[in-house]
């Protein structure tokens, strides 16, 4: 049995406290009224020494202040949303990877099952947080989902948005919450039963629970691939309600899986270095690193497929997505492509490097940073536009959710023996050799 080291606990709690402070400071610092924004702008201009304001610019300024006010109000909420979604997506991706292991009756991975189950331990808390955040948006506490503004679908209003109104059959707040509830319930039910069955299997042996697990895993995967796609439209593509991409679900899935596998590898290497997981050898790490490499390439393939078709066709309603990212987020947007493609490609190409623990961890950190920025660049342009900055709210949210994730993952690892001894493929997995 694994026991949670006090140091790790303290480490996680410090991250959570510091992160929570950062999030609170971020929320407090968001401007409370348009006047504050005006004052801020005036101060900035005073700094720049541009005192003369032309008369015709005043109206423009009003609009600018209005936008800036909303963007700055959205910023701390978006930062929280990005962090909450990123760590939730790691747990969800791990769950999908875990289900694939059961459904394909993989022989190499049973020694890692408990590591994966530990990571999916974050699924339930992460789901609750995600649902709360979505509910807060629906009930108007924040306005990060622009399409939720009822004025946009009101034909009488001068803000009436023909395109958003046309999508109202899907993009409406009751449907949005009901769908979220369905996705989250389905995923958590699978996690609950699958975990229950593997524990039963440890107790009773045989293949009864193994077969049951196989069946629910196969059903879950069908449910997952549909709901994951719809989740990506609802929870991420919805930030740019005018824009659409038909491979968006795949794109989010690729990022999710590569981050999840990276975390599985990192947790496995960490536990191994603490003297646990005696049966995990460097061939298991090699296989995980192959998945990290492969899914990084897959992610890039989808990123480029989405980018090139839209770039080449150059249709205004599609291309705005990339225009705003390339103009306002240039370094982050292209930097994350380099982090997510070039580094894994060159660092993990060599077969021997995939068995070197510190290289796997190092590349893993780069991949996770890259995909964090990827989520950031998917969300932020739709909520804060050009007024983005990586400051206290962003770092605070990331630290808080990192601490929470670490704490929950490692405490759920303590709840069962680290070896799923009932798995019929356990012997094969113990002797897995590349």
């Amino acid at each position, binding site marked *: 049995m694994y026991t949670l080291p006090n140091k790790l606990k303290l480490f996680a709690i410090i991250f959570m406290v510091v992160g929570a402070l950062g999030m609170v400071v971020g929320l407090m610092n968001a401007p409370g009224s348009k006047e504050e924004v005006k004052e801020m702008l005036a101060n900035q201009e005073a700094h720049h020494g541009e005192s003369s304001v032309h008369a015709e610019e005043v109206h423009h300024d009003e609009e600018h202040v209005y936008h800036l006010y909303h963007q700055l109000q959205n910023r701390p909420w978006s930062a929280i949303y990005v962090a909450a979604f990123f760590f939730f997506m790691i747990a969800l991706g791990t769950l999908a990877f875990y289900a694939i292991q059961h459904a394909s009756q993989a022989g190499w991975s049973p020694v890692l099952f408990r590591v994966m189950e530990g990571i999916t331990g974050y699924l339930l808390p992460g789901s609750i947080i995600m649902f709360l955040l979505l509910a807060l948006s629906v009930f108007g506490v924040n306005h990060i989902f622009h399409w939720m503004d009822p004025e946009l679908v009101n034909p009488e209003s001068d803000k009436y948005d023909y395109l958003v109104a046309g999508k109202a059959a899907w993009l409406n707040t009751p449907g949005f919450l009901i769908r979220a509830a369905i996705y989250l319930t389905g995923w958590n039910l699978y996690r609950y039963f699958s975990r229950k069955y593997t524990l039963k299997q440890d107790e009773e042996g045989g293949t009864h629970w193994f077969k049951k697990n196989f069946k629910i895993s196969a059903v879950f995967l069908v449910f997952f691939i549909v709901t994951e796609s719809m989740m990506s439209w609802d929870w991420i593509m919805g930030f740019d309600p005018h824009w659409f991409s038909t491979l968006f679900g795949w794109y989010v899935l690729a990022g999710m899986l590569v981050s999840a596998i990276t975390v599985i590898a990192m947790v496995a290497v960490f536990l191994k270095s603490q003297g646990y997981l005696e049966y995990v050898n460097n061939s298991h790490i090699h296989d995980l690193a192959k998945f990290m490499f492969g899914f990084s390439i897959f992610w890039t393939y989808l990123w*480029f497929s989405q*980018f090139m078709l839209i*770039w*080449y*066709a*150059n249709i205004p309603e599609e291309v705005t997505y990339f225009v705003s990212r390339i103009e306002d987020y240039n370094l982050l947007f292209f930097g994350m492509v380099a982090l997510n493609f070039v580094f894994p490609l060159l660092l993990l*190409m*060599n*077969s021997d490097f995939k068995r070197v623990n510190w290289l796997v961890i190092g590349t893993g950190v780069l991949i996770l940073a890259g995909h964090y920025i990827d989520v950031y660049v998917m969300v932020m342009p739709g909520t804060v536009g050009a007024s983005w900055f990586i400051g206290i709210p962003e770092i605070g949210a990331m630290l808080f959710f990192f601490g929470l994730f670490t704490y929950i993952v490692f405490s759920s690892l303590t709840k069962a023996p680290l070896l799923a001894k009932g798995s019929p493929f356990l012997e094969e997995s113990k002797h897995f*050799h590349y």
Partner: protein
Amino acid sequence: MASKVIHAIYTDDDVLMQAVKDTRKAHYHIGEVYTPFPVHGLDKAMGLAPTRLAITSFMYGVVGLAVSIVMMNYIMIEDWPQDIGGKPSFSYIQNMPAFVPVMFELTVFFAAHLMVITFYLRSKLWPFKQAENPDVRTTDDHFLMEIDVENHSIEELSKFLQDTGAVEVNLVDKQE
């Protein structure tokens, strides 16, 4: 120069793997092993140096990438610029996304084809080449391990090989 070798024939790959390990442990020199299919881990058991084919493949890929960049620059930018889809070919970097599929394909093309050709050359395989395997059964369901006799006692060696599970042990004069 003619040298004496022993051909030990096996009918199972697991038995063969164990025999290879035992033979090496007993300090006999294995000249070659002929198998009807690739036996996983045999190269390591025989103590062969790791293949450098992957390194050549990487280098061929880099060559392919370079060729594609130079080629597309010449075709689409310098020699005959065309305006496709409202994207005039004024500069390479602006049109680069359109060339990425070409870069990818040529990288794969060069890496794969040149690697296969290197493999053929390195294994001394070319059209009309006389087969080197000494026993046609190694193309069907038998495994053959060739051991150099050198100055070992032939009886002892044959006895040893029979004990490792060989179904047949033959002494052969090998023409170099």
